[in-house]
């Protein structure tokens, strides 16, 4: 009987403390639990979950230097891209150091891709009339992808002559700039 009273007392005290802690710090936040949120109270929290991966990534970039061409993940795990021009002994040594990673050879280093991409970003900002809507490096296919509004033969020729004619470029046509994904409606 005494034990039951103690448990009730502690339950009430715990509830009070929880209520106070919720409302003291952020009194203007009313956070309601919905039925559909997911939780796992036993999960270990790491603020930077990729810190270990980042460390490995930096080691790999540092080791491969100009031969590094990027990395990606797929169903087989992590693939590291190295240039075909990389010294053979360096690639062998790299494979021995990271046996769990797949190594694939490509033509362009990441640095080469980024140099071309930066050139296009510069053109994109300095010459908006060219209609460059976006640009990115496609690591998996080892190329730079450029989207130009209403691309036609004339625009592509002009781009290749005046900006870059790199064989790594893929130039595509888009109708407009990116569409902001918020709803637009008007009151009637």
């Amino acid at each position, binding site marked *: 009987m005494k034990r039951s009273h103690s448990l009730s007392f502690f339950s009430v005290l715990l509830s009070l403390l929880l209520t106070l802690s919720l409302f003291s710090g952020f009194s203007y936040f009313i956070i309601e639990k919905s039925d559909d949120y997911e939780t796992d109270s036993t999960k270990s929290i790491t603020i*930077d979950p990729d810190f270990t991966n980042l460390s490995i990534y930096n080691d790999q970039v540092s080791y491969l230097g100009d031969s590094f061409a990027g990395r990606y993940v797929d169903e087989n795990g992590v693939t590291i891209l190295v240039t075909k021009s990389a010294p053979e002994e360096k690639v062998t040594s790299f494979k021995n150091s990271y046996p769990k990673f797949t190594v694939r050879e490509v033509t362009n280093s990441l640095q080469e891709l980024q140099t071309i991409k930066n050139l296009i970003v510069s053109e994109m900002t300095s010459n*908006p009339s060219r209609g460059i809507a976006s640009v*990115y490096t496609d690591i998996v296919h080892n190329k730079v992808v450029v989207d130009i509004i209403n691309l036609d033969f004339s625009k592509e020729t002009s781009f290749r002559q005046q900006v870059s004619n790199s064989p790594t470029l893929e130039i595509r046509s888009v109708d407009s700039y990116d*569409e902001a*994904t918020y*709803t*637009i409606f008007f009151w009637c």
Partner: protein
Amino acid sequence: MMRPPILFFSGVEIKNNAAGTGSSSSCAAATRLGAGGFLTHSHGRSLNDTVYATGTTESSPIPIGTVTALANSSGLDAAFITLSDDAAASNYIPGANRLIAAYGSVEVGDNVTLYAKYGPKTGQVIALDRVYYLDNIRDSNGQLIPLSGISVNYYADLGDSGGCIVLTNDTQTLVGMQSSRSSVDDDSDPDTPDLQFSTFVSAPLFLNALNATLFN
């Protein structure tokens, strides 16, 4: 080290202005310089703009907060909304609420899931370094401001902006916030649908640019 989960949620719908010209999702509760608020996209917003509660009408606007930080000068489509002292926020977008326990980065090929107004969408990361324009983000001279984000092959719905993006295999790790979508013409083959994809903002980058901390 074991710690209790951080208590914050995503899935709050907000309106962009009182005139009823738009509404968005909101990424997550956060703090900035000691004040409580939400993370969302910046789109055409300016500092000190007012944000209104969902359901607000032009005749009876209900302000809930103010834009107190923008990241678009850093090339990121993100904003911090400081909640008004008397404003309350709750989570009611069905299916969009997630308990976020941490944030992290992604690699090309990672599977990610967007939780926002129009249901979850799952896709693969295509590129980490996409530079793009949004027609409504311009400087004071009307010039487009280049933004940078992560390209992914799901196609977001309008209204999903500001939604939170998590790793598909770890839905408590925030990796980004929904920004825009685009499609690529492929008229050479009418039977093949156009390529459609979306772009989101990297969580570590926008948290840093906004000087914001996840709510805990």
